[in-house]
């Protein structure tokens, strides 16, 4: 069974390029354009292998989303990666405190993305 990954970003280009790369690696992906839409999706999902989320998004931002997701029993221990722009140390820390597993610093290449995804989602 392919591993399933949720990608949350308000930029369709980024969502699609990440999806594209992950498909090549044999992952299954679903996309949400902000935290709120993602949260609604979680309600109807049993489990996920990984969530990749942007930080700055309308409606519900990445940090807020992570906090909410961690409150759900099914996603308490799901690996979550935060997409940060440049090396924003503060965002990484904020993300980690909210319960993120790790982060991906933009810009990243496909190899780096795959490396990190494999690292946290196995």
């Amino acid at each position: 069974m392919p591993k399933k990954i949720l990608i949350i970003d308000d930029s369709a280009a980024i969502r699609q390029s990440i999806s594209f790369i992950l498909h090549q690696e044999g992952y299954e992906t679903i996309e949400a354009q902000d935290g709120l839409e993602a949260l609604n999706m979680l309600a109807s999902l049993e489990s996920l292998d990984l969530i990749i989320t942007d930080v700055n998004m309308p409606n519900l931002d990445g940090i807020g989303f992570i906090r909410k997701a961690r409150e759900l029993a099914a996603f308490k221990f799901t690996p979550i990666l935060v997409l940060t722009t440049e090396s924003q140390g503060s965002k990484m820390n904020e993300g980690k405190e909210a319960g993120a597993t790790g982060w991906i610093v933009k810009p990243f290449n496909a190899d780096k993305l795959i490396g990190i995804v494999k690292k946290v989602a196995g």
Partner: protein
Amino acid sequence: MIDKFKAAFREESYELLSQLEDTLLELESQPRNGELINAAFRAMHTVKGSSAMFGFETISKFTHEVETVLDQCRAGTLPITKDFIGLTLKARDHLRRLLEFEEPPPREVVADGETILARYRDYVATGAGLKPAPKVQDAAVTGEGATAPESTLQAQEGPSGPGPAAHESGLSTYRVFWKPKPEIFLDGTRVLSLVEELVGLGEAAVYPHTEDIPPLEAIDPERCYCFWDVVLTTQKTENDIRDVFIFVEDRSELRIERLAEAFLDEEGRAKRLGEILVERGVVSPESLREALGSQKRLGEVLVEKRVASKAEIDSALVEQEHLKKVQERSDPAAGSIRVASEKLDALVDLVGELVTLQARLSRTSFDLQDGPLASISEQFERLISQLRDNTMSIRMLPIGSTFNKFRRVVRDLSLELGKEAELVTEGAETELDKTVIEKLGDPLVHIIRNSLDHGIEKPSAREAAGKAPKGRILLSARHSGAYVLIQVADDGRGLDRDAIYQKAVERGLLAPGQEVADDELFLLIFAPGFSTAKVVSAVSGRGVGMDVVKREIDSLGGSVSLSSEPGRGTTITLKIPLTLAIIEGLLVRIAEEFYVIPLSSVDGCIEIRRSELASYGERRILSYRDELVPFVSLRESFETAGEEPEIEQIVIANSQECRVGFVVDQVVGDYQTVIKPLGRMFKDVEGVSGATILGDGTVALILDVNRLALAAQRDGAKRAARGGER
């Protein structure tokens, strides 16, 4: 986002592809080296991943297919053959080309890619169904070059395989202690994945500490109780190791310690358990000493005394075992250290001075006729010669390291010329002075190119001549006394005697109709500007090359010889002195001046009366072992003043082209000498290659036999011509 990174992507890909090329060439000689297959796979994989991200779909699709095949090789379900490597090299070149186009690339370029992929499919179809082969990574080090029967290569770990070269390739051993905080699970971290990732960095011994896991009723299933001791031998750096834990740094305790490269103690034994425990801070040196006093096994004593826990002992034992294993693997290099080459050069210089001084000592003690002093001097001489040999051996490197680059030369050139050829190497382990090896690269490339261009025939011509369509070039090295013989032998058509003869006449090197032995004739191809190629090819070029080869080998104090048989092939032999710094010479005297003739070129000495010599007159040719040998008077050559003695001596020396005699006043004897570069004063003196300082402190010049012989020949020809005019 996409466009911005295209340039960076291209940059990165070029880099990766050039690494891939190196990897593939290495893989060719070590087809079962799992690490190399992995590296090739990784490179392809990386290009695939990033090309997709930046819109290079053609590249992405292409690499995807190649990667799939590489993956099968990695799993051992497909063999790695020469053809496969050739094909993958092609794929690499194709990728490089693709990178130069924007998406979509021209149709014909894409079609080229399709051709390559079709060949891969054929390969998979014919090679599939192979049973997974065991990955051989620590095969015995044989040191022999690749001799590949059939098309499937055998695993051969040359000098660049694991083993002695392990240290060269930058393997280090680290002791990693990782203790995640109890709440590590709460952010979704997969602890075992991280340990697996760490272990994947190299060869590791892992000890998980489970002693803190409570019984079931007391366990909090969402807390972490375990921690790890890992000993890791890897090419990776400490930062690479830290990167594994990058997301959990704040939630764990991480200690990385690099272990000293040599795990042996002063007495050459592997590290003791006690040492490891002290290093790890498990026990203090005092309690170790105490425990060692007991008759029981150290581990048991320490556990009994509650100085260390069983887990701590077990963990240390795991480390000990790992170190032993790594140690054994890299045994020849076990106690090795790296030294800057300047330090070595300085040492060689000092030894050179000592050798010189020693010569002075023996001479003085001989002159003084002092018994005790003579005895000391003799002992001193023995020690110095040992010291010299030891020092020289430090500078020695196996020549095999340079062999690899010739493979690509042969591969590419044979393609270019529409020929088929393989390079077989022998004696890759033969050791030679480091500086000599460095200077040998270019001449060897010239020779090999020449063999391919002029020697090896096209496949059709070979088959017509009843030979295998694939030509073979044997590159071999072996010791021969103080020399190394390096041979490049091809099984091609051999030298064209008539063409060379004709050319030699055209160039005025031979008189028309002049009789000349094959050996002598063939050596003419090393003459400047000599090329028999009817069409100037892009490869061997315009007759530059072979004369350059000769010049460079001369400058190494070596010599070139050549043999050839029509239809059977040509063998070029380079005779290279093991070292440049010290030579054995024959010391000769003319009037008050001393000269050294390299012993390697001395064939013999004869005495001759002055009156007899005078009878030769203008014809300066004497008979030596049924051979006519021209001779020169060094007194004349160096315009030395004074009278010749009644009985003179002639040293017969072998130069590249011929034998030649040197008339000297006296042959003093064998002499070991350190070559010093010539000062400006002597720079333009023809026939001198260096200088040395004699025992009594005077300077002696070292004769350049080849140059002098040439001059003698020229002279002889002139005289003969003059004689003919008369």
